[in-house]
């Protein structure tokens, strides 16, 4: 009996020849990412709860201030300061204002075959480079930071086979929202969502990160894609080499197999207040919006900004609508400036903000008020996620969000 890609990565990290779904393995963690959402508490636990405070390998740690930057209050500033000082003292790689953690991790750290813990649920994004990334809380993070190891329950895998090609006006985000709608918010809990098939050839790295990143919204422990030529080219361009290039064996056992024709996917929105509450975009045509957001670890890459800029060029943001454009990293921002995209957004009346999590996380810039409606390329539309508890978030693709910003109501790119 063969092994799945997830089983192979975990076996490698556990230094065992074979492992199977349901086994518990002790693994050496290749990389430990954390951000300002929780790190201040991890530091307090390090100082106050450990009998022997110690970091197994500081080189494996990467820390980001990306959620609430620039700081919105003295309390936030104090938490940032605590992180900054601890990182300096312990020589931990520290990025502040450099971009959303997952985007910068893809640009600078993630390698195929690695097992990575991130103190952030969207760590599953790293599957786009064939790495097993999974979200953990501060206690698991601290344990791995101190010992270099952790325990994992080996997950079963849902294999999603993609055929064909997405139609014009349809984005990878429409695909993953469709899948989440199909299997539900708990449809992949404890499982890995693995993407294979000839349809992968038409998906760019930006598409792949967007797909893997959102899998936690179906409860997935991780998402995985084989590091093929497209992924290995990206890796080489960013100056890295793989740990191991792995894929599932043909006779591996899968929990479920889902086959999808990319040509059948249509523009879709997730309606308030759940990511799996999806509907064809056309069912929401005419819903008035107060704000539109293009950005986040899900959809703030150069490719997203390009399609959005192309659509809005020569047009204006609708009167009374705030359109926030937030590049996912400083390198994305710099490229967008070079290509003239930022100029296009500013000319159209958008607000271009510094690379950060922005309103996707709802505690910093761009929060919405009571009764207001946001259309967003962010990761979640939970009640109150973007501000007031009585507000409404629709999730959609970069194209649909931009089209809606122009129209002032939910619409698709072919209608503006």
């Amino acid at each position, binding site marked *: 009996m063969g092994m799945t890609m997830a089983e192979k990565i975990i076996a490698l990290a556990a230094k065992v020849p074979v492992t199977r779904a349901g086994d518990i393995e002790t693994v050496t963690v290749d990389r430990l990412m954390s951000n300002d959402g*929780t790190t201040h508490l991890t530091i307090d636990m390090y100082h106050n709860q450990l009998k022997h405070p110690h970091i197994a390998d500081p080189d494996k740690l990467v820390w980001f201030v990306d959620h609430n930057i620039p700081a919105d209050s003295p309390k936030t500033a104090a938490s940032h300061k605590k992180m900054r000082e601890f990182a300096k003292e312990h020589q931990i790689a520290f990025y502040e204002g450099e971009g959303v953690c997952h985007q910068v991790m893809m640009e600078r750290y993630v390698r195929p075959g690695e097992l990575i813990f991130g103190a952030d649920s969207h760590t599953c994004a790293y599957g786009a480079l064939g790495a097993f990334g999974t979200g953990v809380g501060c206690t698991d993070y601290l344990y791995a930071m101190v010992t270099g190891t952790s325990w994992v329950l080996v997950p079963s895998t849902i294999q999603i086979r993609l055929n064909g090609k997405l139609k014009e006006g349809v984005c990878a985000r429409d695909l993953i929202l469709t899948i989440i709608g199909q299997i539900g918010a708990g449809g992949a809990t404890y499982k890995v969502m693995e993407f294979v098939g000839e349809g992968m050839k038409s998906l760019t790295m930006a598409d792949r990160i967007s797909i893997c990143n959102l899998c936690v919204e179906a409860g997935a422990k991780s998402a995985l894609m084989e590091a093929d030529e497209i992924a290995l080219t990206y890796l080489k361009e960013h100056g890295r080499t793989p740990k191991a290039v792995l894929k599932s064996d043909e006779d591996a056992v899968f929990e479920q197999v889902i086959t999808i024709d990319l040509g059948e996917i249509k523009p879709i929105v997730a309606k308030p207040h759940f990511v799996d509450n999806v509907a064809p975009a056309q069912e929401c045509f005419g819903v008035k919006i107060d704000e539109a957001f293009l950005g986040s670890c899900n959809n703030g890459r150069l490719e997203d900004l390009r399609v959005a800029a192309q659509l809005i060029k020569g047009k204006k943001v609708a009167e009374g609508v705030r359109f926030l454009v937030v590049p996912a990293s400083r390198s994305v921002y710099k490229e967008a400036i070079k290509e003239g995209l930022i100029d296009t957004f500013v000319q159209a009346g958008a607000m271009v903000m510094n690379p950060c999590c922005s309103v996707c996380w709802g505690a910093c810039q761009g929060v919405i008020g009571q009764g207001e409606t946001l259309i967003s390329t962010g990761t979640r539309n939970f009640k109150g996620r973007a501000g007031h508890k009585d507000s409404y978030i629709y999730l959609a693709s970069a194209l649909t969000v931009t089209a809606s910003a122009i129209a002032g109501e939910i619409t698709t790119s072919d209608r503006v």
Partner: protein
Amino acid sequence: MGKVFRFHKDVDTDQIIASQYLLYPTVEEMKEHTFESLDSEFAKKVQKGDVVVAHENFGCGSSREQAPAVLKALGVKAVIAGSFARIFYRNAINIGLLVIINKELYYEVQSGDTVDVDLEKGLIITEKGSYPLAKLPKKMQEIMDMGGLIAALNKEA
């Protein structure tokens, strides 16, 4: 004995503790905002020993450990749900918050009912009847028995 606070399905971590409070310096300062969007009086009403009961997929969404931590800090004895999101479940056990999977209880109790979780007898006891406690996986029971993952780590060291 404690009181039941009953919630629906897919209670996400933003409802348990919203993003705008996560960077507060301590869990003690965050805890008064627990379940703010669902029941703004929750933190005032809840007492030590009370129990949160919910439908499926409790704690979905973010990996924020602040979610189980505020419940523990408020004295919640246990969260009993039809199922849990993976990261919340693991975080709860790591900090020693009792999480119990039970598919029936949600349909049997209302907010305000009295409930007791008797660990010695292995029972959830309500006014209407009792339900056996499902066993935790061995690895997780070991962590709970040691008082959480950090206590376990301190014993290893």
